[in-house]
C-alpha cells in the first residue's frame, strides 16, 4: 500500500488496548508507520516474552502497559503511564475484546458478565479515563482527537449462538454514537466512530473456530475459514492490516467531519 508510512500521524500519541495481537497489533503497527507514538495495553505481564519481543520489534516509539480493561485501577495506571511518558493523547482505540458462543439457555451468568465487562465496560472505562486528556489535546490537529471503538458486524446483525457477543458489540455501536453526539454538542474536540470488522484472520478467530470444531460443527478450522470466505461477497477473510487502514483513516485529518459513524469493513457480508 503506497500510503503506508507517509507520516500523516506525526506528533500524535495513540493508546491501543488489546495491542499485542490481531487487529490491535496491526493498528499499532500502522500508527507507528505513520509517525505516531503508541502505547499498547494487554493482559500479559510487562516482563513476559510477548510484550518484550513486540516492543523490541516496534521500536522506541512504542511502549507497553499491562492492564485489564475491566479494572478501573488498571485504567488509572494506564492514564498515569500516558501522562508521564507523553503528557497528552490524541487517539484512543478501544480494541480489547473477547468472544462467547453458545445457545442462550446455556450461558452462565459468570460468562455473560465476563464478556460484558471486557467488551462493554472496557470501552466505557477507556473513554471515561482518557476523555479529559483527549479533550485537552484536541485543538492540536484539524478534526480534533479521535476515539475509535472496535465493534463488529455482530454489532449490526444477529447470529446464531452469539447472543452475548451480539449484545456486547451492539452496545459498543450505540455507546459510540452517544459520545459522538455528546462531545460534538458540547464543542469537546473529540470525534468518536465505531469500526465493524467482518471475519478477520486473528488469533481470536482461530480460537473461536477451534471451539466450533470441538463442538462438532465442522471437521477442521480450515473448513470453517473456507465456508466463511464463500459466504463473504469479496470471497475471502480480511487481513488485520485492512482493519488498521480504516483505523488510520479515522485517526487522520481526512476524517475530520466523521463522528458518530459506523465504518463497516466486512467484504460485503452485511450487504447481502
Amino acid at each position: 500500500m503506497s500510503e503506508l508510512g507517509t507520516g500523516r500521524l506525526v506528533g500524535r500519541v495513540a493508546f491501543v488496548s488489546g495491542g499485542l495481537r490481531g487487529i490491535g497489533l496491526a493498528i499499532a503497527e500502522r500508527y507507528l508507520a505513520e509517525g505516531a507514538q503508541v502505547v499498547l495495553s494487554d493482559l500479559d505481564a510487562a516482563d513476559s516474552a510477548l510484550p518484550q519481543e513486540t516492543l523490541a520489534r516496534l521500536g522506541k516509539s512504542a511502549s507497553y502497559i499491562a492492564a485489564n480493561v475491566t479494572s478501573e485501577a488498571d485504567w488509572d495506571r494506564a492514564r498515569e503511564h500516558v501522562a508521564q511518558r507523553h503528557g497528552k493523547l490524541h487517539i484512543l482505540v478501544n480494541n480489547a475484546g473477547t468472544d462467547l458462543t453458545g445457545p442462550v439457555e446455556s450461558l452462565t451468568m459468570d460468562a455473560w458478565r465476563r464478556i460484558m465487562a471486557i467488551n462493554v465496560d472496557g470501552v466505557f472505562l477507556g473513554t471515561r479515563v482518557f476523555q479529559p486528556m483527549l479533550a485537552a489535546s484536541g485543538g492540536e490537529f484539524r478534526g480534533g482527537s479521535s476515539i475509535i471503538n472496535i465493534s463488529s458486524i455482530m454489532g449490526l446483525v444477529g447470529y446464531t449462538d452469539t447472543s452475548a457477543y451480539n449484545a456486547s458489540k451492539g452496545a459498543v455501536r450505540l455507546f459510540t454514537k452517544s459520545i459522538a453526539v455528546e462531545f460534538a454538542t458540547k464543542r469537546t474536540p473529540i470525534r468518536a466512530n465505531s469500526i465493524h470488522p467482518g471475519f478477520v484472520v486473528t488469533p481470536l478467530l482461530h480460537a473461536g473456530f477451534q471451539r466450533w470444531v470441538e463442538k462438532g460443527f465442522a471437521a477442521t478450522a480450515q473448513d470453517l475459514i473456507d465456508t466463511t470466505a464463500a459466504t463473504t461477497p469479496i470471497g475471502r477473510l480480511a487481513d488485520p492490516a485492512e482493519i488498521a487502514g480504516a483505523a488510520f483513516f479515522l485517526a487522520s485529518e481526512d476524517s475530520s467531519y466523521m463522528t458518530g459513524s459506523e465504518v463497516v469493513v466486512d467484504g460485503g457480508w452485511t450487504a447481502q
Partner: protein
Amino acid sequence: MSKRLAGKVALITGGTSGIGAGAVRRLAAEGALVVFTGSNAAAAEALCADTGARFLTHRVQEAEAWPALIDTILTDHGRLDIAFANAGVEAGDNSVEDITIDGWNNVLGVNQTGVMLTVQHAIRAMKRNPEGPVGSIIINSSMNAHRAMGNFLAYSVTKAAVVALAKSAAVHCGNRGYQIRVNAILPGVVETAMISNLIAQAPDPAAARASYEGMAPLKRMANVEEIAGLVAYLASDEAAFISGSEYVIDGATTAGMMGV
C-alpha cells in the same frame, strides 16, 4: 499529498462543482488520471487547468450516451479503476403532495437512473481492465437516505434507493468473483456552491446559514475537501476489504435524534 492513486484512472460524474469538483482535485492530487463529466464546460475549463483532469460533456441519465463515454476512456487511457457516481439534482423536487410528475422524473432520472447507468457501465469498463475485473465504485448518497426531508421527496427517495443499489451491485460483483468494490457515502450538509446560493437567496441569509450549520451536533457544515478525503480512501487499495458499505459523514447529525 501522497500518491496512493498513481496509475489509476478515475471517472467522476457531475464533476464541475461541489463535491464532484472536490473529488476531481483530491483524486488528481493523489496521482489519479481523472476524467470528469457534466454540462458546465465553462466551470470545467478552470478545473482542468488547475488539476490536469479531463472534461467530457455528458449527461448521466442518457443511456445511449454511455457506451461512447466508456469507449473514449478505455481507448485514450487504457483502463478504468475508480468511478464516483456523484451527479445529483434537486430541481423540481417538492413534497409528496405537491411534486409534479416532471419534477419527480427529473430527479429520478439523474439521481437514480443516472447512478444505475454509472455503476453498470463502470463495471462493464472495469471488466475490460488488462488484469481482469478490478476497481472501486463510490456512490454519492446522502444522510437523507436515513432521515427523509418532507419538502424534498424525490431527493430523499433516490438517495435511499442508491444505498440499496450499492449493496446489490457489491453482492453481484462478489458473486461473479470480480474484484470490483461498490460502496455508498452519505454526507450531511456540505458547504457547496449550491448551499451557498440557497443561503444567499434566503430572506435572512444569516438565519439560513445558522440553520444549516446547526443541523449537525458538530455545529458546522462539511467542506468538500472533507468528503473528498473519504472518496479517496474508498478509491484506494487501502479499502480492499470494503464493499457494500454505507459510510455516513455528517458530523453526527444522524447519530442522534436531531432530525433534518
